[in-house]
């Protein structure tokens, strides 16, 4: 074994070639077929000039095809870069420009027509990058987080042992492929020889339909951002004793509101519930907390727990920092941002830590808790959003003199409401719907403000900076007025 992610599939393809690896709607791909198809692809990519270390982007709706691409790209020794099919073209262009791919695979040019199933010799080492995932950047340019084979493998091995995943498991594939949590769905399933059930994005629009999906696929594991669990709880989509096959429910990416957790733990008492925490920069998750008993109070605070195997959690001046096996080598071709976020370990010479920007504290029992954010990054429906990226995009729209974006907390399942205060250029009166439509060509849907307020001038503080706390307060007052009206 070379310690590369593609080995996980090869191992099961040799042992149980007929076993199902991936299910998407009516489509099933076995381990044997996945292995053969990705070998063919790797050879085609080599013929097309793809060399070890090259980037290969892919753009397709969630299906079995991008999973074959992902594996074939790795087998060619290249780095895969999943593109979000729901993202506007202008933003995808920025990502493509940044990573300079040798190829961009699409369903029109899938490169799946190779004729030899024989595997190539491994062309990468475990410490080489496997993929680059782009996240929101505060200056308007998405940041590429480079993740190595070894980092993913370390989390997968910990996850397998901790959760007891095996070949009888049927795991959810809810998370889009350009988002880091999907890495565990995919490679965790492959490592166990389990079935990965891709959740069609449409299914997730309606909570009852999603519940039916979990029931009919007889999923044993659910892993997603908390907003989905919250959405299903609020819609009362889960019956008492529902999902009899479901053994574990894990969430990551933001805080699951405790009332939703209580709801789930009462409805699905036979499952194990685990809160995972960790940013993309430290690969999938860095800490875990198994919720042992249903919280008694809806006000109870659920800790992020303790470090996963091979990882380290530490506090530096109140900021949560992460060290260990999951640490990314840094941001793609951005040494300045890398040096800012990845700093020397305060106690271990030669080691690094990643500064998460999350504020935390340690409880007397040794478990870590989240307290808040040190900057203007928010999580909405699990998406990491830099408000600065939205402001930067707004700044390019004609018709606006200035604008400011703030986020206010809500008790809805989305957790944060993005609000935009704007000042039109003299003589113009752009409608919020028109601004939203123009902005939608620059940033993904989850970044679009839900509330818009036109101002004659933005409020400023004594230093001449936009008074964001005051804007927040104004939006909050509007929100309360609309809820009570």
């Amino acid at each position, binding site marked *: 074994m070379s310690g590369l992610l593609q080995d996980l599939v090869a191992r099961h393809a040799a042992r149980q070639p007929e076993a199902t690896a991936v299910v998407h709607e009516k489509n099933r791909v076995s381990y044997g077929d996945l292995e053969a198809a990705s070998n063919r692809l790797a050879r085609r990519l080599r013929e097309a000039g793809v060399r070890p270390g090259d980037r290969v982007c892919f753009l397709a709706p969630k299906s079995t095809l991008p999973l074959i691409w992902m594996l074939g790209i790795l087998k060619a020794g290249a780095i895969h870069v999943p593109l979000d099919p*729901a993202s506007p073209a202008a933003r995808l262009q920025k990502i493509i420009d940044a990573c300079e791919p040798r190829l961009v695979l699409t369903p029109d040019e899938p490169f799946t027509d190779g004729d030899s199933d024989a595997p190539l010799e491994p062309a990468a080492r475990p410490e080489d990058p496997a993929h680059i995932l782009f996240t929101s950047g505060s200056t308007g340019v998405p940041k590429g987080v480079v993740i190595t084979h070894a980092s993913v493998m370390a989390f997968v091995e910990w996850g397998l042992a901790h959760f007891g995943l095996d070949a009888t498991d049927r795991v959810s594939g809810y998370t889009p492929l350009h988002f880091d949590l999907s890495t565990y769905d995919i490679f965790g399933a492959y490592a166990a020889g389990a079935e990965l059930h891709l959740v069609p994005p*449409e299914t*997730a*629009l*309606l*909570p*009852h*339909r999603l519940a039916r999906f979990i029931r009919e696929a007889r999923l044993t594991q659910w892993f997603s951002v908390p907003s989905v669990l919250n*959405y299903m709880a609020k*819609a*009362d*989509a889960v019956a008492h004793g529902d999902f009899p096959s479901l053994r574990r429910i894990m969430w990551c990416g933001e805080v699951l509101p405790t009332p939703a957790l209580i709801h789930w733990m009462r409805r699905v008492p036979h499952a194990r519930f685990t809160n995972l925490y960790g940013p993309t920069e430290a690969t999938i998750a860095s800490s875990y907390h198994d919720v042992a008993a249903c919280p008694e109070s809806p006000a109870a605070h659920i800790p992020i727990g303790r470090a996963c195997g091979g990882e380290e959690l530490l506090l530096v001046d109140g900021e949560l920092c992460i060290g260990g096996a999951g640490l990314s080598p840094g941001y793609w071709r951005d040494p300045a941002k890398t040096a800012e976020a990845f700093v020397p370990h305060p106690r271990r010479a030669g080691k690094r830590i990643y500064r998460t920007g999350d504020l935390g504290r340690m409880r007397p029992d040794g478990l870590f808790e989240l307290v808040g954010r040190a900057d203007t990054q928010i999580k909405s*429906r699990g998406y990491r959003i830099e408000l600065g990226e939205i402001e930067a995009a707004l700044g390019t729209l004609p018709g606006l003199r200035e604008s400011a974006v703030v986020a206010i907390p809500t008790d*809805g*399942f*989305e957790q944060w409401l993005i609000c935009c205060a704007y000042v039109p250029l003299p003589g113009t009166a752009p*409608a*919020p*719907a*028109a*601004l*939203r*439509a123009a902005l939608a060509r620059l940033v993904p*849907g*989850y970044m679009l*403000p*839900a509330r*818009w307020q036109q101002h004659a001038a933005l409020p400023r503080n004594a230093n001449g900076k936009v008074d964001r706390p005051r804007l927040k307060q104004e939006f909050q007052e509007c929100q309360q007025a609309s809820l009570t009206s």
Partner: protein
Amino acid sequence: MPASIIDELNALFEEALHIEVPGPHTDLIDSGLLDSLQLVQLLLQIEERMGTRIPLDEVDLEDLRSIGRLADLIGQRT
């Protein structure tokens, strides 16, 4: 498709959801115009402004695909 309901829905999308919908047949789901957050808002606004309750657990996604389909659904329920 009842024209007055379509006008009302267009106004609702524009004013309450701040979404410009190109036409009554535009696919709201495939185009990415509606996500789960907006879908909940939409049903809430239809109930508030038009007095038609569409329970989330009874709705068929196909009925929400376009403003035209939605207008048909609301027409049937009122």
